[in-house]
């Protein structure tokens, strides 16, 4: 699956995107965040403030309990500030 990071989440992780195989025990966005947080100190720092993290699965905004599957495009970012 493809994981994308934007804005300060991207800066803290140190990557714009990465490909990975979804672990069998990860079922939803919240689980994916827990898994990703353990990948590096940068990931841990990016996800430390859980309330400041928003997610999109296959380019649709979604809640932490949204299911994720291998093959999904999942993006993590701060609350949007366009306009």
């Amino acid at each position: 699956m493809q994981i994308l990071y934007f804005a300060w989440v991207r800066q803290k992780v140190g990557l714009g995107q990465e490909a990975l195989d979804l672990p069998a025990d990860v079922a939803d966005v919240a689980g994916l965040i827990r898994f990703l947080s353990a990948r590096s100190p940068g990931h841990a720092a990016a996800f430390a403030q859980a309330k400041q993290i928003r997610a999109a699965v296959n380019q649709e905004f979604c809640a932490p309990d949204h299911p994720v599957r291998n093959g999904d495009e999942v993006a993590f970012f701060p609350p949007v500030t366009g306009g």
Partner: protein
Amino acid sequence: MARILVQEACFDVAAEQALLAEGRVDVGGIAAFTGLCRADDGISALVLEHYPGMTERALEKIVAEAEARWPLTGCTVIHRVGRILPGEPIVLVLAASRHRSAALEACAFLIDWLKTGAPFWKREEFSDGRERWVEARASDDAATARWAG
């Protein structure tokens, strides 16, 4: 029908407005909102980042919602990305309709929704090299919420 653009280049408000009336005589009014880059706290530039692909999808959904709510004859949303200097335009929303109320309401709806429903992020740059990500504002969520239901 709608014209939706995400681009680094600046836009020409008059030319965009003319496009909405070109070749037709049923347009009674075009409401326009242009968002500009303020020099808050002495920033030297704003850098706009977005999520290519999702941004366009999100804008299309917001425009489709406006078209479902109001009888628009046309609609334009142009959002710039990249480095924007104080005083420069960031975003343009145009809504055209037979009558002003639909045009004005749709224009306000579009800019309110765009601020909370499309994946753009602003980073402020200062002349001394500092940078700061703009934080989302509760007032923007409240502005969007007034259109619920």
